[in-house]
């Protein structure tokens, strides 16, 4: 159970299923991207901070908007979208 959910129900204290993760609320997304040297262009796509015309690609091979971001995993930078099939792939990689 995520901490995010526990905050609403403080009695729930079962251990997280997810290990070695940093979860973030939508309001903290820009900080996360900034920490990873990424930025967001005028159309909402995630781009390289050092090259604002270079849009990053998701694990499904598409350009990815910040609003579509589900996760970032190491392996250079692996951007997962938040659609269900991408979440399933991510879940398998977190095992």
């Amino acid at each position: 159970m995520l901490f995010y959910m526990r905050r609403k129900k403080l009695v729930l204290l079962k251990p997280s299923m997810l290990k070695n993760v940093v979860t973030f609320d939508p309001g903290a997304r820009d900080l996360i991207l900034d920490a990873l040297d990424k930025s967001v262009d005028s159309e909402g796509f995630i781009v390289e901070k050092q090259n604002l015309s270079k849009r990053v690609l998701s694990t499904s091979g598409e350009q990815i908007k910040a609003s579509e971001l589900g996760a970032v995993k190491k392996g250079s930078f692996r951007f997962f979208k938040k659609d269900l099939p991408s979440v399933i792939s991510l879940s398998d990689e977190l095992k």
Partner: protein
Amino acid sequence: MPEWLQKLLELVKFDFSANLLKTDKVEVNQTHITTAPEAPTIRVQGDCVEINISKLTPEQIKAVKPLLREAFDRSNQTFIASKTGEQIEELKTIEASPQSEKILSSLRSIISPEDYSALRSALFLRSQYAAGKNVYKLKYEIMQRFGDRGRKITNLCSAGYFDDIPDQLEKAKKSPGFTQDKFRLSFDKFVDESAFAIFVKAHSSTKETETQIVRGIKDNSSYGLQRLLIHGIGKENLTKIREAVTAIIKKHPKITKVKEEQVGDAILVDLEYPSSIHEELQA
């Protein structure tokens, strides 16, 4: 506790051990970054540490960024959006349920990896639907990734077809001449043709089955489709479907049974009819 997190706690002058509750663990498995107004600057609960960045000073924020980068680069932390994290936990729970586990483990090595992923998505969607949630977006996401085949697998899953597959597969394995390739071929064909198909429910009567088949013919013929496939699993369904089809053909001789296949206790009947059957059935 990883080094980057220790540095972060020092940065905000947070005494970790002094803030542990009896229920908390020293091991930290998860860090959560929030901007929720009601959350304090930092708190510990269970195996999680939550940091509210909206309550940090600009200098502290500046210092947090390289620590997050360190977490990613050196501690192999994966950064996950809260909602995605929740979805992963829900997915794990759903796939650990006996029903889903049985379906997935029986088909994992048989169907294609694409179909298997579509099936996992379909099982997730079904459980969300059962919980009363809106599944429109999930359905769209499945179609986006897996196309029309994903839509068919989702519809079959929602209709409960996959619930009987593990038992059907076990029985089929005992039949002479069974091979996984043959089963996969019949599965592929079944998914491809599912748009024309109806699935007879296990607990319906022969009369109800007859009504269901006639309704299927009416529905298909109203869109110009001159074919209906009837699927059923289980010994009762074998008899029921044969009886119902015989009764229907007797009443409406324009309907022809072009094929009947039986694999183990599973039956497939293929009916064809002219487009004029629609008016006849309406009468």
